[in-house]
């Protein structure tokens, strides 16, 4: 019997060796001494392998990327970073392997001494869209058409303001009444809440106050237009300031999840994203139109989805950019959700901490939110001071169709 027990023990020991080894893992946020492109590839590939939020929907075969590009980068491991030709060829490979990544915020950068190489797959894709235009094109047209409408007396109760932010950027906002019965609000970036933190009013907080006052008390309102065309996004905390008066209580308008585990497909539950009610003096049973376009990104797209979730919400314009996640662009934020963005001395992967769907579970990541009523950007009409997308919103509100 003893010999049989011994045999069983031997078998058990043999079988315990059947478990797989744990892989070596290096945090890509650590300033490892990356001295060649093979190390660079290893850090980037593994960083994405464990931290990227979209492996459940991304079409990129990341394992195939490893098999295809790993050997090619290995050939460069004796080259260092001093040869510009090598660097350019290597970064071309980075572009190829990253080209189909679906994260609409995604960008990869390589720091090679004084040279920096950068690539944003979705920017390259948006530039290929029909009727492509830049955000500068849109803002130029918007300003021209607003000035024209102002001259024509179509805009009343107008208040506009502009403030230079601490980072040197500019926040611009305008609130007013269009054609006597439509409340109109536009702003260039979601940097509004910071102007509400102080007791002292500034140009932006005054525009916000004007917008809120109009929503609360302007008589005979037929509709509201929130214009986030060519708005590059910004702070999540702005959402209630923009839409919080359209709901009586906190309102779920999307779901988000993030990585919860090391595996590519380990995610948190889908967590409801809520529009916080900020209190309103009345219920506006009128159309709420959001204007957005192909340069409406991130918070501008979330705002679009939030409007679409409202009973009277409609989206007019163009399919949005396609970056719906949220992002903290700082290595120090890693431990909050344990995923997303990473940076070290040789690279940065600008990728979001969350992925998002609408209430029906549709993801628009890398694709953009489609409009309810499509009205393309019209450069010719803009040049004449006519904003065809805004005019369609006006006609929609007056006809409610």
């Amino acid at each position: 019997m003893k010999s049989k027990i011994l045999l069983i023990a031997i078998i058990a020991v043999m079988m315990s060796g059947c478990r797989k080894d744990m892989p070596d893992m290096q945090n890509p946020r650590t300033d490892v001494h990356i001295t060649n492109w093979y190390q660079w590839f290893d850090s980037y590939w593994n960083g994405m392998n464990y931290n990227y939020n979209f492996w459940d929907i991304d079409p990129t075969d990341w394992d195939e990327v490893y098999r295809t590009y790993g050997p090619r980068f290995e050939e460069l491991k004796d080259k260092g970073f001093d040869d510009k030709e090598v660097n350019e060829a290597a970064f071309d490979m980075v572009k190829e392997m990253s080209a189909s990544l679906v994260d609409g915020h995604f960008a990869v950068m390589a720091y090679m001494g004084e040279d920096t190489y950068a690539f944003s797959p979705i920017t390259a894709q948006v530039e290929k869209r029909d009727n492509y235009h830049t955000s500068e094109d849109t803002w130029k047209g918007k300003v021209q058409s607003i000035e024209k409408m102002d001259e024509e007396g179509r805009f009343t109760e107008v208040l506009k303001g502009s403030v230079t932010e601490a980072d040197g950027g500019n926040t611009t906002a305008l609130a007013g009444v269009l054609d006597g019965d439509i409340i109109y609000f536009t702003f260039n970036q979601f940097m509004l809440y910071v102007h509400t933190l102080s007791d002292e009013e500034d140009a932006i907080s005054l525009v916000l106050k004007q917008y809120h006052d109009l929503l609360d008390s302007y008589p005979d309102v037929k509709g509201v237009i929130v214009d986030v065309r060519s708005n590059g996004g910004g702070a999540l905390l702005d959402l209630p300031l923009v839409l919080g008066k359209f709901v009586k209580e906190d309102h779920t308008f999307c779901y988000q999840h993030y990585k919860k585990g090391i595996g590519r497909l380990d995610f948190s539950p889908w967590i409801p994203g809520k529009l916080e009610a900020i209190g309103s003096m009345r219920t506006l049973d009128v159309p709420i139109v959001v204007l957005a376009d192909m340069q409406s990104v991130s918070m501008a797209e979330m705002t679009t989805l939030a409007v679409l979730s409202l009973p009277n919400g409609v989206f007019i314009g163009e399919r949005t950019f396609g970056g719906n996640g949220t992002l903290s662009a700082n290595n120090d934020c890693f431990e909050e959700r344990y995923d997303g963005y990473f940076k070290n001395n040789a690279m940065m992967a600008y990728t979001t901490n969350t992925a998002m769907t609408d209430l029906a579970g549709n993801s628009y990541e890398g694709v953009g939110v489609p409009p309810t009523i499509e009205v393309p950007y019209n450069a010719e009409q803009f040049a004449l001071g006519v904003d065809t997308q805004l005019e369609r919103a006006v006609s929609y509100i007056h006809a409610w169709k």
Partner: protein
Amino acid sequence: MFTAMKKYLLFFVLIFVGAESLSAQWKVGVQSGYSLNSISTTVGYFYDRKYESAAGLTVGVPVQYGFTDWFALGAELSYVQKNYCLQRSGYYSALHETVTNEYLSVPLYAHFSFGGKKLRGFLNAGVYGGAWLASHREGVELPAFPTPGPGNYQGVEESTDLYGYDEDVDFDDRRDNRIECGTMLGVGLQYQVLPFMQIFAEGRYYYSLTDMQKDYMINQVPRYNNTIGLQVGILFTVGK
């Protein structure tokens, strides 16, 4: 992996083929108890998100065929919960998740007993195969849009309203390996209450040899179940 398992199993059975069937008899019964599962894995550089053990339930129907008074071959159909917790620490210690994983398991083992006529010690050693039936999780996470206010906080729960959840988990065919195989070892005491009825108490250890995930990514971090079972049961002699 499975070819190796088959070889081991065959080898294991052949060891006992020669056992003489002097007092061959069938026994069947029920058993139930407590399970305590832990996960063998690594957290890598996701430093403070630890996998912790969690308790569960096990229920089974054992069948034994005794060859001698000291040796039998056994098989079971067992429901075993192999649960675990994911727990953050420090500032994020309010964030946690308890995962309940339900398995249907079929252990095949050799049963050795020793001691007196009525009270005997025993040792079970064998292998098991099973299916991962269902998964459920409940926990607390950060909300989609945290809304931190001003202030110095000791924990994340003070800075924002956390999101609580309690949900069944859909299996992902790309990731989840719903077949589990491994080895098992148990020790315990059995007491012959009546000539046809025996009660027992057993401490058991299931050592999984299969990753809970399919091989779906390069540099995959495997996860293995290690399960302790503490159970009591009753066996009836049903035939010779």
